[in-house]
């Protein structure tokens, strides 16, 4: 079970994140008033990604957090799609989202590259992203938020499912002991 979840889910997560990236960028651009702020928000993302990455490396039992990382990223994407663009505090909320998202993605990435399937994923990842983007280019989407929220929902459900399965497996293992 663990093998399968480590084989396919990270691929879905990585491909999905890249595929929604252009849509997320559009949202972020709308939320940031100037290009300078837009660039700062990216810088904040990068710094916190480094922090997430480092925290993963410095901890021991790190894999157990992965379902929650998925749930966290999923909820953030859903939040992005709910927030109205006319919201007065949007730039401040966008900063918060970038900081949390950066952390979660850094943490996730540090975990992902340590998986055995990572090398295999790399090739599939590029091929899949390419194909998904070609497909998306034919889909007439009214608003980027629909794509973002759909992916956020999927990510949340994956995280939730994984957390539940892990829980059940732990209980079963305890019983066996």
């Amino acid at each position, binding site marked *: 079970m663990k093998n399968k979840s480590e084989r396919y889910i990270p691929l879905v997560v990585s491909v999905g994140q890249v595929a929604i990236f252009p849509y997320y960028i559009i949202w972020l651009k709308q939320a940031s008033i100037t290009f300078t702020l837009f660039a700062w928000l990216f810088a904040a993302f990068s710094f916190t990604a480094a*922090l997430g990455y480092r925290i993963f490396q410095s901890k021991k039992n790190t894999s157990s957090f992965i379902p929650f990382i998925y749930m966290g990223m999923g909820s953030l994407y859903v939040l992005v799609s709910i927030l109205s663009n006319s919201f007065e505090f949007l730039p401040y909320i966008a*900063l918060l989202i970038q900081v949390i998202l950066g952390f979660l993605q850094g943490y996730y990435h540090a975990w992902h590259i340590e998986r055995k399937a990572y090398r295999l994923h790399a090739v599939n990842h590029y091929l899949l992203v390419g194909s998904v983007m070609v497909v998306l280019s034919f889909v007439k989407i009214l608003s980027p938020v629909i794509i973002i929220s759909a992916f956020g929902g999927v990510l949340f459900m994956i995280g939730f499912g994984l957390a539940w399965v892990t829980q059940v497996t732990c209980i079963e293992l305890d019983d066996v002991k």
Partner: protein
Amino acid sequence: MKLLPIKLQKHALHKNPWFLGLIVFMFSVWIVLNIPIEKRKYGLSQSNLTTDYTGLLPERIKGIVKAGDRTELQRIVKEANKNGHHISVAGLQHSQGGHTYYKDSVVLDMKTFNKVLEIDEQYKTVKVESGATWGDVQAAIQPYGLALKVTQSQSIFTIGGSLSVNAHGRDIRFGPMAGTVKEMTILTPTGEIKTVTRNDSEEWLKYVLGGYGLFGVILDVTLELTENEVYTIHTRVLNIKDYESYFSNLLRNDDTAMHYARVSVAPSTFLDEMYIIDYKKTGTQDNQTPLKEEHGARIGKMAIDLGRKGGSWEDLFWENQKLLIKSIDGDKITRNNAMRGNSAFMEYTKPSRVEVLQEFFIPVDQYEEYISDLKNMLPDNDKDDDFKIHNITVRYAPKDNYTGLNYAKEDMFGLVVLIQHGLQENEMDNAEAIIQKWTDLTLEYGGSYYLPYYHYQSKEQFQRSYPGWGKFHQEKLKRDPNGLFQNIFYNYYFIEGASHEK
């Protein structure tokens, strides 16, 4: 403990989660402090539609001329007379009813015509080009310990734009702004450059001041000044019914130079409570204190944005304002700085909605009864309404005998109202209906309304508010026979009116 070589320590630093966490925290705080305040987008444009401060009346114009040289301006006016082009005049375009442009007109952008020409310390006057802002003038006269007599409550407007609407502000001693003009150079609609004074038999000043750019271009002006005195701020919360007597006492005693007040629009004290801010004379002249710049606009904007939501947010905003004025009670401020109210924190950029100003003038002795009637007319809680009132400031507008289109036929209180509403047709109609009803009430009390703002009022209401409109129109036709100087404001009130009035 074994010490690591410096190179290794450095290497370890950026891998330390605590260090990275600190960087992230500091960087995020720095971003929060530097997130720009979103500015509304408006202004002159040749490629897109031109608008003014509210963006409500987009229109295509023929061209923009950046004013630089008066003979060049004269040539443009003379040529336009020959080839039948229309000209409009624009300062900083804070007027809100298309006063600075007109369909297919050439717009003279006066912002670049902004030199302070001469300061006479002995006679306390300043000669300045009309595109300069009050802020520019203050910067020039402050080292001499001098200050302006009458300005708006902020210093962001051009001199030409302010004189053309005969603006008013916090001063209660020097009469209307028009009265502080000693001399003026104008470019008339027929292309003559004239220097005019109040005693001029042709009465140019009567029509150029408060003339909304319809009687030619103000080139430069000599303004009377006064001392840049230090004042003590005095603040107090009052009940509406005590204001009239409070103010007449204030006028009678000579110790207060400037004054304004705010009326509560918060549901729990709606049109019951108000606070006042007085600037009391100390007799000390100042030429040292620097001109204040706007600080804390971000926090101010956050607070005002919350208050704009109405309901209990508005209550909170009002309570907060009362705390704020208590905290400044007894502080000292120079006259120049008292005339430099903040403005950036007021930016309103919500898509599909607009924030507008309206100002109603009411005879000083009618204030209490008027507010009581207004209270019956307006809902005390507009949280769920489209039409929201966020602020009412009260200022004194003394009787004006200087201008043709005068809003203060006797001593008045001006109630400046900050309103937000939606831009859908039904929302615009609703705003118009409420403001027209409000104007009718004001007219019943012998009042009037201020013309630099958007024309929600009907042509008929304009004529009742400004009985001198007919003479003003006659003079316009006489002095500008080719109808050279045009703007949307003139077209609406003097020619076409609202679509249902045609």
